[in-house]
């Protein structure tokens, strides 16, 4: 029985002549009813950077984790240098010369760089730390980065930690490096540094496979790209000949349109951001935050937020940028009533709401859509119950819940927000996009004066992302103020009128969107000051 050849015809022309360093044949992996990888064929050549491009949920990570032995594919074959190998654990993968940097780093924070690198190869005998340090230094020299082998990992920046992960792979003489969403956690400057590193590695003959859903990264660094959609290979082709828009359409499976979409998907767009502020609402301030200070956890130091000052006007989207963990979560927690600040004030429409809980904030017209959807809706309860959860008292008749009213309310919102679910389905059974729509419907239906929203499109597919972003822009047109926290710079630049950058719990700077470039934001996110940036 031979493998049915998928649509990846272009590979045939490369495959002949020399053996690919890694070849995947017919990889299949199902999680329950979900087919994450469906008969995937892939060839990785020496010295190339190969991108796995696809939307969230297209099966990129699963494929990579299967290759590294973190998940076990249900069927299929892996060939390394033309010989079939069996990879059932990362140990097998390392032995076969495959290294991987996972999305969430596997580093032990209080240990040094050398200790972390050696951790995966310690045996029972005595440790030769001096030799280990040399190895780490050699490997660092190989990729041309300076790194102190004795630095404790917790003291390193995210970009540096990622380098440590790469070193871990290199120390094991890997010939194939797998990177799962390597740029998701990096500021733009670190992305550039990473790409430089990758180029050096490929010059030395390594093959690099990395996953991304950002097209501009693919065109910046990759030689070839394989597009996945719903677990299947759509195509594999050279990056040079591929148009960004064309790839996007392959990724999504339909023509891509829309205002926000272009920028979000990473097309070069010249849609003048200035033109976006077209609503002439007199700038009335709906949210004013002054001197906001929030106590931090042990790992963050004493303050998670320090002396934060910002405001949101009616009819404006204020974007809050920053590398994750720089106080965004705490800011959202305070503004959604889930955490009390130790100092400072929060005013909504001129009314002091410092330390107010969810109920008072809702009564004041604050709509809250935080990043953790599972902690905002009750997954085990039905769509209709979740939709009324914040205002149960408006849906009662005598002492009872007015079921008819609840149902009618649910049906109306399901229709209005195009939620693909019935009113009695449990929210936990919905896709991320539909779950987010339930939350959006619950909040936006009340026409809040101020919307606090964090990572609204994380984990959503392109269609749902587009929908959610449009809804947020509609709030702005309606005259509400929107505070948007996101780690997706493209999203921030596409939706915001004004941006503030949080760095280590402080406002590092504020820019109107016309002056905000990824580079400037990156500098601020990395700890630069506004003077340095605009100088």
């Amino acid at each position: 029985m031979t493998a049915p050849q998928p649509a990846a015809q272009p590979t045939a022309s490369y495959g002949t002549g020399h053996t690919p360093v890694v070849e995947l044949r017919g990889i299949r992996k199902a999680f329950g009813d979900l087919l994450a990888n469906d008969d995937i064929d892939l060839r990785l050549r020496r010295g190339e950077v190969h991108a796995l491009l696809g939307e969230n949920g297209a099966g990129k990570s699963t494929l990579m984790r299967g290759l590294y032995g973190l998940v076990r594919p249900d069927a299929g074959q892996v060939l390394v240098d033309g010989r079939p190998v069996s990879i059932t654990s990362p140990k097998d993968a390392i032995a076969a010369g495959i290294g991987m940097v996972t999305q969430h780093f596997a580093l032990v924070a209080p240990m040094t760089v050398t200790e972390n690198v050696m951790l995966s190869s310690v045996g029972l005998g005595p440790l030769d730390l001096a030799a280990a340090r040399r190895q780490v230094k050699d490997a660092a020299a190989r990729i041309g980065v300076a790194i102190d082998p004795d630095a404790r990992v917790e003291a390193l920046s995210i970009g540096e930690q990622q380098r440590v992960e790469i070193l871990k792979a290199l120390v094991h003489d890997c010939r194939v490096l797998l990177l799962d969403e390597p740029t998701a956690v990096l500021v733009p400057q670190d992305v550039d540094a990473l790409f430089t590193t990758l180029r050096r590695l490929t010059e030395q003959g390594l093959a690099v496979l990395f996953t991304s859903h950002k097209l501009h990264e693919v065109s910046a660094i990759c030689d070839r790209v394989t597009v996945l959609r719903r677990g299947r290979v759509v195509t594999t082709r050279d990056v040079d000949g591929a148009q960004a828009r064309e790839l996007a359409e392959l990724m999504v499976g339909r023509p891509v349109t829309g205002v926000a979409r272009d920028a979000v998907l990473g097309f070069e767009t010249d849609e003048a951001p200035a033109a976006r502020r077209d609503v002439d609402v007199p700038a009335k301030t709906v949210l004013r935050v002054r001197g906001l200070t929030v106590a931090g956890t042990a790992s963050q130091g004493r303050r998670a937020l320090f002396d934060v000052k910002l405001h949101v006007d009616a009819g404006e989207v204020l974007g809050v940028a920053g590398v994750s963990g720089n106080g965004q979560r705490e800011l959202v927690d305070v503004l959604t009533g889930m955490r009390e600040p130790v100092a400072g004030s929060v005013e909504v429409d001129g009314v002091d709401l410092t330390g107010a809980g969810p109920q008072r904030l809702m009564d004041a017209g604050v709509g809250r859509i935080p990043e953790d959807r599972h902690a905002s809706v009750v997954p085990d309860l039905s769509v209709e119950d979740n939709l009324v959860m914040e205002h149960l008292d408006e849906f009662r008749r005598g002492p009872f819940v007015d079921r008819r009213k609840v149902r009618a309310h649910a049906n109306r919102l399901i229709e209005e927000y195009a939620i693909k679910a019935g009113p009695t389905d449990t929210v936990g059974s919905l896709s991320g996009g539909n779950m987010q729509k339930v939350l959006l419907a619950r909040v936006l239906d009340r026409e809040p004066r101020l919307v606090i929203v964090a990572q609204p499109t994380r984990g959503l597919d392109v269609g749902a992302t587009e929908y959610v972003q449009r809804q947020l822009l509609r709030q702005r047109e309606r005259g509400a103020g929107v505070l948007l926290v996101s780690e997706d710079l493209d999203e921030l630049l596409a939706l915001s009128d004004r941006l503030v950058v949080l760095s280590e719990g402080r406002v590092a700077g504020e820019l109107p969107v016309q002056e905000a470039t990824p580079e400037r934001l990156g500098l601020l996110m990395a700890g630069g000051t506004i003077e340095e940036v605009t100088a």
Partner: protein
Amino acid sequence: MIRFALRGRQPRWLLPVLAVLPIVLTYLLTAGPIRAAGANPAAAYERYVLQPLSSVDSVFEVLLTSTPLLFTGLAVAVAFRCGYWNIGADGQLLAGAVEATFFGLNVRGLPAGVAIPLVILAGAVAGVVWALVPALLRTRLGIDEVVTTLLLNPVALLLVQCLLNGPWRNPENQFPESAPIDPAYTFPRLLADHRLHLGFAIALVLAIVVGVIISRTPLGLRMRAVGRSPEAARFAGIRVERTMLGAALGSGAIAGIGGVSQVAGLQGQLTGGISDGFGYTGVVVATLATLSVTGVVFVSVLLADIIVGAESAVRVLQLPPQMGDVVTATLMLCVVAVLVLRRYKLVVRFPAALHRSRSRPGLGEDAA
């Protein structure tokens, strides 16, 4: 090779299968032990399940036996629904029983129309008091209630024994039992010629009230939200601690009334064996009922059926009295095991088929 795979959606046939399969499994699993004990499994099951339901009189006996289980099962279900793991229904029931006895011994001369509501209220308050400290520790300080409620059970039992061996020792015969309570407090019988008493009716009314509260009122919806996802409930503006405290105390009150029902309805006095582990059986009842109120009623009666049947199986078939417990325990294990099928499906693959369907060897297959 058998594997568990996550279910995408529950198929329609699943629910009836989930109800029937544990019963079949229990029969298959216990047939061996029953055979070994010298009885015919089919005959034993006839005794356990059918015999008690075969006459009007024994049906009432089953309902009488189910009464304390109804109270504790309801109490546990209410608390569990709200995410409060009250394992202390036994202690709360004993507290109610002690309170009922206190009134029955010391507050004499009231007319029954006053005495009975009073003693019910007093028992509920006693259950609440016994539940209060763990509930406050949990909602104020986050101290795990499983441990605190559980550990208060033996404390309540020791209190009962202390009273029975001390101030309340029966003055007539010096047995460690209380004197009979004032007849004004005694629950009336529901029927002239059977022991089934008012307690059963109270339990049923409570079941209906609790069922309506949980499924039809905003309070019930809040309780369920708190139980399923406290963070999301808090986010939606629900006062999680207050709701949970309310459920915990309500649970204690129901168990406390159960204690009153045992003293004033059945025994007419306080004895050391007033609770036959009813609080713990309540956890079993609530779990088997998957915390649904109708389920609690059904399971209480089913377990009572087996308990009554086990007594007759001892007499008629000479089966050891523990065999009833074996059957109940096996049933519980089977139900819990089968409940896994709600979220997972079994994927069975035979090695031969494996080779045929996948000719290509490779990744991760050698173990298969």
